[in-house]
């Protein structure tokens, strides 16, 4: 491709500026977290003596250990079940194509753009009637339902590309539907499944609205919900708030940096298909 040198330089400079703007808030958060707690440090300034103890203090104040455990429990409740039932449905709708499947699929599509605020009010009363308010179930159960449009859409898009010959061959060898699904199609779907798992993991971890409305105890919430509560409680102590925010961000950042390639491609594909 022919690109002039001047254009190249313009692009490089622009990219560096944009990266700086992206990273600046993180740096600002980190630097501020090192100031003595209770002070109002000015913008981006290195403290006279860095107060690393803010991190341990924030760790204790936020009860980080239990927060993490709560988020992990929510993930364990949401992700495997959502993956399993959406894969089954996607397999049926994309590969077996039963009569009436098309109508079902369109029904799922309708939920694809639904803003969560649209149904939060009935969810509250539904959870209250089930006696699940203030428990992790109040986040887990609705999330499974809310993920179905996207997850089914995603898995169907995968199964529709699987050739029929594979299933025919397996059937001739005497495989029934259950074996066909578990022994042939699930192992062949691992790339699609792992991308979906990453997306569902991230969305659950960052889920805020359901946590704020349905669960008032931060120790039963998702990470994002807990962060909201932490801000409400320690919002006036800026250095401590910054330290706590960074701590709460750390698990996501670590997981992202480890799996970044998968993350980026999953999110890009995810938005392309959605």
């Amino acid at each position, binding site marked *: 491709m022919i690109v002039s040198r001047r254009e190249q330089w313009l692009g490089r400079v622009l990219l560096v500026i944009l990266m700086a703007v*992206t990273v600046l808030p993180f740096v600002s958060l980190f630097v501020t977290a090192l100031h003595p707690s209770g002070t109002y440090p000015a913008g981006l300034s290195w403290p006279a003596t860095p107060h690393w103890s803010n991190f341990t203090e924030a760790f204790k104040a936020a009860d980080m250990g239990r927060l993490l455990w709560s988020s992990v429990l929510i993930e364990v409740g949401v992700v495997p079940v959502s993956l399993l039932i959406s894969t089954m449905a996607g397999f049926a709708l994309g590969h077996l194509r039963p009569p009436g499947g098309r109508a079902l699929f369109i029904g799922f599509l309708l939920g694809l753009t639904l803003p969560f605020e649209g149904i*939060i009010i009935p969810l509250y009363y539904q959870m209250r009637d089930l006696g699940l308010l203030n428990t992790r179930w109040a986040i887990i159960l609705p999330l499974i339902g809310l993920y179905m449009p996207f997850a089914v859409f995603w898995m169907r898009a995968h199964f529709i590309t699987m050739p029929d010959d594979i299933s025919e061959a397996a059937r001739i060898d005497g495989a029934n539907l259950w074996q066909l699904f578990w022994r042939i199609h699930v192992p062949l779907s691992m790339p699609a499944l792992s991308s979906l798992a990453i997306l569902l993991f991230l969305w659950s971890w960052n889920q805020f609205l359901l946590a704020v409305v349905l669960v008032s105890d931060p120790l039963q919430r998702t990470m994002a919900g807990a962060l909201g509560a932490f801000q409400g409680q320690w919002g006036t102590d800026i250095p401590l708030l910054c330290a706590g925010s960074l701590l709460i961000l750390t698990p996501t950042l670590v997981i992202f940096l480890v799996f970044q390639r998968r*993350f980026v491609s999953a999110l890009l594909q995810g938005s392309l298909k959605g």
Partner: protein
Amino acid sequence: MQKRSTTIRRHREDEAAARFTTDRRRRALRARRLRRGGLALALTAPAVLAYVVFVIRPIAMTVQYSFYKWDGITPSTWAGLSNYVAILHNPELSGSIVNAFTLILFFSFVPVALGLFTANAIRGFATSRLAVVARTVLFLPQIIPLVAAGIMWSWQLSTDGVVNQVFRLLGLGRLARPWLGDFGTALPAVGVIGAWVLFGLCMLLLLAGMTKIDPSLYEAARVDGAGPVREFFSITLPSLRQEVVVCLTVTIIAALASFDIVYIATQGGPGNRTLVPGLEIYYLAFFQRQVGSASALAVVLMLLVLAVVLPLQSLSREGKS
């Protein structure tokens, strides 16, 4: 003669028998297909159940609530369309919708325009080390919770924050202000946070789309003497129709359904200047106990999202055919 007619008869009998067996086979096939169809539908049952119980039923309930006056405790009374009429007449409610549409400007148009510009500027070295690092860095805002973005930026945009520090450094100190607390700048400031979050995703989507364009098109354009601007508008932009539609869809939904960022950064203030439908639904339903009007606003929000997003989709389909 005799012989011939018997062969014909025999032939016909064979045919009938054959038809009988194909009939039977066809029926058996159909039965198997139906049985398989039934099994296939059974496989979708858990997903359908979860979807119906936690999405479809709540949507129906929201619509139902929206026709009643209800405080969530005492029996409700029929209110007809009055909750919807109130949205038109109550400046707080209609204002929240106007604010959401204003946010589209920042959440959608800024990231898409800036994303197009940047992606176009760097497509020549999309595989260099700098671009690979940029891919990771620019993606960071996408993976952190919006709450965290809200916390970081409310600190940065505060009176002593980095943004004002930069303005003072540039000798523009008189522009410095508490951006999120100022009546004039609060909504644009919230918009900037959204643009920061969504820019990376849009840029990378558009860049991925650009790498799929056939390079010979550009070579041909250069030979014909087209400049970079002409090249962008006659080759790049038309080839990216699908990606642009995806970016717009994702970001417009993010703007109309915004909640997290506003909740953390401004709580809708100052003086409802940054109130958005999502936050208003939350306040009305759970603090002011006006479940009916909150539900009406929720229904309007769901319809608005569909009304904006569906026409966009047909735009990308036109591009494909």
